[in-house]
């Protein structure tokens, strides 16, 4: 107690809560998710009181010792404790007469990592509606409270709580288990898991929530989960590597995207020396590993586009020809209006503003998209058509919700040369 209090790593509780819930759920079964959450809550409340004068030397190990004891206490109370264990996990245990001896030889480090992965697969079970999957992952794996999830997803606490409750009821009543599926079903489930991680990242990267810290946390969690998926034999498909690469490339620009007032700086105007080179290197590492097999996923193409931006010293020298062709391929896989819009924008930078305007005007149903209107305005401005540019910017101004975005458009309007 002679030492002044040791500072804890940021988000230690949140991160470890997610790991411990996954770990306990793997042992007790997914249907016991609420019990697992209660045990973890008690463990953290314990730490809160015991660490007041300073954290122990190895806080993570302390938490695991306590949570493991809680688990054993719970099992000890049951005469036939084996019946309380998830069937999938039971096979791994040396079924002696006491719970203690059965758990003695377990490699906990390995189990924790493995259990987070299984939890991800379970949360994306097709029986759980898609919008509830993301909430469930945020709650169980990322340790976010209902209030924090509501803030991150711009939803109400009641709505989040209701969805969580329904999802958990489903898990309990339909006896969903943490066992990942096999065969072609595994590949489908992996698709769902990757999509949720992709959405999680996008929520953080593009979300309209004003809580900057929370948004950064969501991106970090998505990076962490994608790295976990990329490194695990169950999920390390080439498209998983591509997703991890994409997230690394995008995250590398996190600090360069906002100015001191929190206003958005568009790719064009970003100070590229602020891009995180470590993340870019990591991105290339995953990207190389994604180049195997014969499937080109949307993640491959998006990662490839991001890699061209990462490699370019400034906006003007971007290889727009390559970026345009990649968007063309992306439109073939995934013919969404947003992909088509990006293809048109890339064409404008590749062939000139007039070509960009023409391509954008050929698109339908995008008039109410502010990015579309801003891009149109930019090309008109470049093409020395300030009146048309102003009209497009004025429409965009009415479509955005965030003050930062409105200021950005305001700057563009001021910059127009009549």
């Amino acid at each position, binding site marked *: 107690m002679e030492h002044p209090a040791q500072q804890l790593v940021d988000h230690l509780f*949140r991160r470890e809560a997610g790991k411990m819930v996954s770990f306990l759920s793997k042992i007790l079964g997914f249907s016991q998710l609420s019990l697992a959450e209660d045990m973890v809550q008690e463990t953290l*409340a314990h730490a809160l009181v015991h660490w007041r004068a300073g954290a122990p030397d190895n806080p993570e190990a302390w938490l695991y010792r306590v949570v493991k004891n809680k688990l054993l206490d719970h099992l000890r109370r049951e005469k036939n404790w084996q019946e309380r264990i998830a069937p999938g996990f039971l096979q791994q245990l040396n079924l002696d007469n006491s719970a203690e001896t059965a758990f003695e030889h377990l490699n906990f480090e390995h189990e924790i990592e493995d259990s987070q992965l299984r939890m991800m697969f379970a949360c994306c079970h097709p029986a759980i509606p898609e919008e509830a999957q993301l909430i469930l992952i945020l709650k169980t794996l990322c340790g976010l409270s209902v209030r924090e999830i509501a803030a991150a997803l711009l939803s109400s606490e009641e709505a989040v709580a209701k969805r969580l409750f329904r999802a958990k009821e489903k898990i309990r009543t339909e006896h969903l288990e943490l066992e990942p599926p096999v065969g072609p079903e595994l590949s489908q489930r992996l698709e769902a898991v990757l999509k949720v991680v992709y959405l999680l990242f996008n929520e953080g990267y593009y979300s309209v929530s004003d809580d900057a810290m929370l948004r950064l946390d969501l991106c970090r969690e998505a990076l962490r989960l994608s790295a976990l998926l990329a490194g695990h034999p169950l999920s390390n498909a080439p498209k998983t590597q591509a997703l991890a690469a994409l997230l690394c490339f995008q995250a590398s620009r996190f600090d360069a995207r906002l100015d001191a007032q929190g206003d958005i700086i568009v790719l064009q105007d970003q100070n590229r020396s602020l891009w995180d080179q470590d993340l870019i290197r990591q991105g290339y590492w995953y990207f190389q590993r994604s180049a195997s097999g014969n499937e080109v996923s949307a993640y491959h193409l998006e990662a490839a586009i991001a890699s061209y931006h990462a490699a370019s010293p400034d906006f003007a020298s971007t290889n727009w020809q390559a970026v345009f062709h990649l968007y063309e391929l992306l439109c073939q896989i995934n013919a969404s209006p947003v992909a088509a819009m990006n293809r048109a924008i890339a064409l404008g930078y590749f062939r000139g503003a007039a070509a960009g305007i023409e391509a954008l005007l050929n698109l339908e149903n995008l008039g109410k998209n502010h990015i579309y209107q801003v891009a149109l305005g930019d090309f008109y401005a470049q093409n020395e058509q300030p009146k048309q540019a102003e009209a497009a910017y004025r429409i965009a101004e009415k479509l955005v919700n965030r003050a930062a975005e409105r200021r950005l458009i305001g700057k563009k309007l001021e910059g127009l040369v009549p």
Partner: protein
Amino acid sequence: MDKFMLVFHNTPIAEDVYAQMSPEAMQAELQKWNVWIGGIAAQGKLIGSDALYPTGKQVKGASHIITDGPFTEGKEIVSGYLLMTASSLDEAVEHAKGCPVLEFDGIVEVRPIQHFG
């Protein structure tokens, strides 16, 4: 320098609040305690501090009647203590004002330790 004992009395409501906190909020709460106790330690005035379980046993009278206690239905629970040195009772009270238990309407009792002989 005299010795003082700071006794923390928690309301059961505060204990409930802890149980409802998100992991992030719990860590923030812990950080407050770390800062407060760390500040006393940094001045070389901390002797020791511990938290108590909310319940235990009570031994009463010459006949050693043992009951469960204290009774948590009561208004407050002694949840921990901190032993420190300070130049005066006033100084110890000043330190006590920083205790995070006060944010949940708890009480910090500041008691000088008696010297014999």
